[in-house]
């Protein structure tokens, strides 16, 4: 097995008296698609927010590529190569698809506030290079023709793809997908599975939170199962499908 790109150890988080993440360990090797599943309220989204930097964990360690990142804010995580998509579409309204992807490439630019105000010509070649990369990202996902479209006006399924293009444009090491199949129909979900496999083939490690079991079983190399903030199982899809604890959580065993 490859070395772990993401290592989570002894992670705890609580809101008021509610212990939503209760000592979670999680390891995601480089180059795999790892899924985190669990019933509603299991703490999947909170775990995502903790890894992505939107929330600061109470205790515990999160390492990306060996570097301790627990408590770093989102924008620092993005600079470390951790990109994410959101559960509901969070494209920037009033901006074109291309501009949305260009915002995704923010970490690849260097021009500063004052230089941008005073000397626009200094940043022009950088801007050209970013634009080319943005178009390339759209092309790779087969949506180059949408470049000038108003992002927020696109159908939901397209918005999701634009969000993925925006996250992938800066070539992240780790991509966090928060319920990417949510709101998609069957053919769109099948298309999404194809894209996730292509992302993995491109060398990007994927961590996926998802409700859609068919998608998870189809694309995940490894699956971790959360239940009430604790990890109850971790393994290959085949192992997870056979795990008695998982079956009891999902189907409700006699002792539940």
């Amino acid at each position: 097995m490859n070395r772990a790109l993401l290592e989570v150890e002894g992670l705890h988080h609580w809101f008021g008296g509610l212990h939503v993440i209760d000592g979670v360990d999680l390891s995601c090797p480089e180059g795999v698609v790892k899924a985190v599943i669990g019933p509603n309220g299991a703490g999947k989204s909170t775990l995502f927010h903790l890894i992505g930097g939107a929330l600061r964990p109470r205790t515990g360690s999160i390492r990306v590529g060996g570097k301790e990142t627990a408590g770093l804010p989102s924008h620092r995580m993005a600079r470390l190569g951790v990109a994410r998509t959101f559960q509901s579409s969070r494209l920037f309204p009033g901006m074109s698809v291309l501009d949305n992807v260009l915002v995704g490439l923010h970490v690849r630019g260097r021009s500063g506030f004052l230089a941008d105000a005073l000397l626009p010509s200094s940043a022009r070649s950088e801007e050209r290079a970013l634009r080319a990369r943005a178009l390339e990202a759209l092309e790779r996902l087969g949506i180059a023709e949408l470049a000038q479209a108003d992002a927020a006006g696109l159908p939901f399924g397209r918005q999701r793809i634009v969000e993925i293009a925006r996250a992938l444009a800066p070539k992240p090491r780790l991509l966090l997908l928060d319920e990417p199949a949510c709101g998609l129909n069957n053919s769109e979900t099948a298309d999404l599975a194809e894209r996730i496999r292509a992302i993995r083939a491109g060398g990007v490690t994927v961590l996926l939170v998802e409700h859609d079991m068919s998608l998870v079983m189809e694309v995940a190399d490894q699956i971790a199962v959360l239940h009430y903030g604790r990890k109850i199982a971790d393994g290959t899809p085949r192992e997870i499908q056979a795990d008695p604890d998982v079956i009891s959580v999902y189907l409700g065993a006699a002792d539940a």
Partner: protein
Amino acid sequence: MRALPPGLRRYAALAGLCAAVVLVQVLLSALHAEQYLVQLTMAAWYSLVAVGLCLLMGHTGQVSMGHGGFLAIGGYASAVLTTLAIPAAGASGTALLLRSLGILAARQDPATGADALAVAPWAAFPCALLLAAAVAFLVGIPVLRLKGHYLAMATLAFGFIVSRLLLGLKFCGEADGISGIPAFRLFAGLAVSGKKALRVPNYYEAWAVVALACFLSVNLMGSRTGRALRAIHGDEEAAAAMGIDTARAKLSVFVLSAVLSALGGVGIAHFGGGIGPGEAAVLKSVRYVALVAAGGMGSLWGTLAVSSVLTFLSLRGVFGLYDDAVFGAILVAAMLFAPEGVPRALAGGARRAASLPRGRGRPA
């Protein structure tokens, strides 16, 4: 316009502004109506606040109901420093050295008529802008963590504090404000001052500064930074996930808009020769918000058009006793009937009336 290289196309509207400024002056001079240039000059200085707020509110989505405070800070800083009355007789060696460097300038103590020293306007100028920037920085760090109504209330409170301080501080002249502010001499005989003979150059000076502020705004909004600011406006959490340091970006725009406002304050103080605590009044700050809202929030040129016309009319006394009420009504009406701004609503109405094919609306 199609013949212009893309780098220059964004400055087309700026060139239009310059042309309009020249046209207005030529017309007024030809009609022997140069007295109107006085209010147009003041409108230019006040419009700097609107230009700064357009960046902050329109583009970055951060409301400020306290920017009159920053105009007052700039104006008062320059006013206080340039009207000091350090007795010239028996001045220390340091004072004499500063005088020989031109940092201190001779003037008459208005109370005693004796020779006195005060800070020269060009030396007071960076102090005024730096003070506004420092205050904006210190206020902005805690306040910009707030969003929406809470940010509006906190900035409103900031405006109140500045206003009450100016009314209470002895060296700020309390309710009288500061008068006798000297002319701000520039180069080649030019000066920012209310002298009748200098009406035309003063008009051009003020509008040149506005054009410069617009130049900076246009550059900023067309850049990677400007894109980041619009992203913050759209969705702050998503912007942060894209690697944008949202707190820092918001603070930078806040400071820039405060400095532009302070610049307007310095202009007003030296042009009018006096400044009063009314500049920091809350209703003044609300007025700037109304101008940006009526101008179309993110539209620089719409904001500038609305701001110069309405401020000019207000300064001419057209609205009489209902001055503040008119601006309040404009704010409400703009929100209700023309959320995309009055200029764009008018253009849309004209297009519909002429039933022309619809063109693509281009954000400024």
